[in-house]
């Protein structure tokens, strides 16, 4: 497996949709290729960080205000 082939499979690897034989080929490549191993680990970490940190927070008071506004307009029949 080449690094380019690895890159093509990266998303499937991260999303865990590769078959067992392909996975073992990928793992074999990563054992020999430090660059691809880093790319895999850090890309996975990137997604994990974005998923677990609220970057556009909706503060409770704003949330309540917007919620009430929406419901008031719906009840009025918009």
């Amino acid at each position, binding site marked *: 497996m080449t690094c380019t082939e690895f*890159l093509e499979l*990266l*998303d499937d690897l*991260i999303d865990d*949709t590769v078959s067992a034989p392909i996975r073992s080929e990928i793992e074999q490549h990563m054992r020999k290729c*430090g*660059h691809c191993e*880093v*790319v895999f*680990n*850090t*890309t996975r*970490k*990137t*997604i994990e*960080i*974005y*998923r677990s*940190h*609220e*970057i*556009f*927070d*909706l503060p409770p008071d*704003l*949330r309540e205000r*917007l*919620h009430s*506004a*929406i*419901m008031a*307009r*719906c*009840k009025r029949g*918009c």
Partner: protein
Amino acid sequence: MSTIQSIAGQNEQHPDLALVDKVRAGDVSAYDELVRKYERQIFRIAQHITQNREDAEDVMQDAFLKAYEKLDQFQGNAKFYTWLVRIAVNESLMRLRKRRTGKMVSIDEDLKTEEGSVPRDFADWAPNPEQNYNQSELAEILRKTIQGLPQGFRVVFALRDVEGLSTEETAETLGLSVPAVKSRLLRARLQLRERLSRYFKRKSAPAAPSGTDGALAPNKG
């Protein structure tokens, strides 16, 4: 291709559909429940696309109102959430168009560049690198980084990886093909990784001196 998810979901009715039926029958409180359930996600998506807090507030309200008005057009075989997201994405793009008058805004914008499709930075990251920053610093880094992505990548990443839509749902929501979503997702992920590497890579600092009472030792006296 990946039909496993959709087959699994076919037999049981999604709880949202019962709420939608109630709303259609005139029960506004059922809609209150749906709004409460998804308002934070819709706000986030609107922020990701408009990159503007006031716009996101407007989009969130307009999207829920539009969904309420058009509820009759909602087909029960789709997920209510995906349908709602599509409305919110459209409202967000409309809002952007208004803001930059005269300039067409679409999710196909800025995608001609091949930049960032190949990794360049191979430095390993520190273990749990996000812990080297406090919450607000980290949020700022993550915001700044994702806002630097081309719109068409940012939206795909936000829907697929942040909000957890499937590839097929993301494609449907954005009116893109599945291969287009996949290629944008890979490039979005790689570009974010590359940009975050600046902050998260392992520092090659010399090992801290141990057992010495250097300048950092607390003053006793």
